[in-house]
């Protein structure tokens, strides 16, 4: 379209301006919180609307990193995110690989069983009673096992494995390799992009999860970072649903609150460039196959 009339140029300018405004609205809350966390308490009180660090100060972070409660929470979240992602990916991949084989007797039943869980679940209370009877109360496993496989991810990964030409597997079989070897030495290397995508999916979900922790974890020293964040920001502000969950926080200074939010968000912001690249693809894959 070579014809660049005045009205076309004008409409492009309006479009760019509107999209700019939308982007600003999206980014300002994050910018404000991050900038405030790197400012001094005095600067924050003086000039309210901070979008860039003013009177740069790391005091808030020095305080946050010196409190063992919050750092323990970060460590626990990191631990369950890394270990949980690895475990979830492994189990999902193994089941997806098996279900990708059309000649495996029983495959249909398992497929239906998986699909049903997409539209029906036992619900909060039966889950709670059952998982508590498994001994998950106050165990970090409670933050990993109840959502070990995401049925949706499983279905998409299965479809992906089915796309890999069957001949590759056939030739490995002729060479005497069993299914486990084929999966780990042939299928996995071929699916690294998919595995990366869904590992990120899983990792973000685990890092962001907090409700399972509220249900199953009563010991404060086992709280993941999201639960601590809720305690520090929401409950200390005399809001929220359950005051006095065993921790008595004083209302921390504003810069500290900003620093706590920033620290809990940082891992997401660090992996975001990768997330954005792969996730859109993953979502598209899902919506096409789903």
């Amino acid at each position, binding site marked *: 379209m070579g014809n660049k009339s005045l009205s076309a140029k004008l409409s492009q300018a309006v479009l760019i301006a509107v999209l700019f405004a939308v982007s600003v609205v999206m980014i300002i809350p994050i910018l404000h919180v991050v900038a405030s966390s790197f400012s001094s308490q005095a600067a924050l009180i003086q000039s309210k609307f901070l979008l860039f660090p003013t009177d740069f100060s790391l005091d808030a972070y020095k305080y946050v990193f010196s409190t063992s409660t919050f750092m323990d929470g970060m460590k626990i979240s990191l631990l369950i995110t890394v270990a949980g992602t690895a475990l979830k990916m492994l189990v999902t991949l193994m089941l997806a690989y098996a279900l990708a084989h*059309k000649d495996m007797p029983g495959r249909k039943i398992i497929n239906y069983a998986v699909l049903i869980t997409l539209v029906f679940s036992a619900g909060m209370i039966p889950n709670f009673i*059952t998982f508590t009877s498994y001994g998950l109360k106050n165990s970090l496993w409670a933050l990993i096992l109840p959502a070990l496989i995401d049925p949706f991810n499983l279905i998409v990964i299965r479809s992906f494995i089915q796309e890999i030409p069957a001949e590759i597997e056939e030739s490995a079989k002729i060479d005497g390799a069993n299914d486990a070897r084929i999966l780990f030495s042939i299928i996995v290397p071929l699916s690294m992009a998919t595995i990366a995508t869904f590992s990120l999916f899983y990792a973000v979900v685990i890092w962001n999860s907090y409700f399972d922790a509220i249900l199953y974890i009563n010991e404060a020293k086992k709280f993941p970072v999201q639960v601590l*964040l809720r305690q520090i920001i929401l409950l200390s502000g005399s809001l929220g649903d359950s005051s006095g969950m065993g921790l008595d926080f004083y209302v921390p200074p504003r810069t500290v609150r900003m620093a706590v939010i920033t620290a809990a968000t940082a891992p997401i912001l660090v992996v975001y460039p990768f997330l954005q690249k792969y996730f859109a693809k993953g979502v598209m894959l899902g919506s096409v196959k789903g």
Partner: protein
Amino acid sequence: MSQTRAKERLASMLPQPPRIGSLWKRIAANKWLYLLALPGVLYFVLFRYTPMWGLLIAFQKYNAALGFLGSEWIGLKNFTDFFSSPDFTNLFRNTFILAIYNLFFFFPLPIVLALMLNSVRSYRYKRIVQTVTYMPHFLSWVIIASICQVMFTTEGGIINDIIFALSGKKLDFLTNPRFFRGMITGQVIWRETGWGTIIFLAALSGVDPQLYDAAHVDGANGWQRLWSITLPAIFGTIITMLILRLGHFLDTGFSQIFLMVNPLNRDVGEVFDTYIYRQGIKEYSKLSYTTAVGMFKSVVGLALVFCADRIAKKSGSSGIL
């Protein structure tokens, strides 16, 4: 799709030992696959299906000391109790109104944003806007609720400082029931508008550019092209997304609401899941009663999804199941 079919057909013509022979032989030939599937299958059995037995306590007066087998069976009493309690209408009203807010204020926005992104000529600018607007999707509700708390609080929050500077008043966004639904819907708009464009952008990328060229030659202006080419192209997607939303209308974002509800706004904020949590686990341990409430929600939700799927298929889209 047809390529894989062709491949399958080809594969089935080749000699395939597992296909021949008895079922037992086929199972034996696949023993490694069963071994690989085992942990995943165990997960579904133990964590997705075993709890479904627990639904039976909805028909009991469950007593943890007597256990599942020893507790008294009371038929549908838990359900009738719930239906006749004022909580029932309250929960339904709150859920319904939130869904309506969502439908009117959030649902159109990703479509509008996708249309705008699709019309931007500069590819780089489009990428930048996408990068920025997708980001909130990855932040947890705890983080979003926390950001809201520090920005909207009457004690030094930036929003209230601005309002105070302009009008000399402060608004209690976080505690006044009047603002609750607006805050919830606003959070959804902030978090999901950008991310929601993906599906519409995909539909838009399927439009044949020649159609636009042809319309251009015929002298159609921008609005005419929007009405007669672009909108019809994504109409099916819009309808599917709409039906999908109706099918899940009981599933208000539990985590999100749980974080924003407090004793002051509970009247308008309480939805099914927060009610189940509070009555069942947090405050009263009414396990049987709340299981009944949860079961009611699950069953209605299931029926809604199936209805939505039927409607979607009747309206000509591929359906959602």
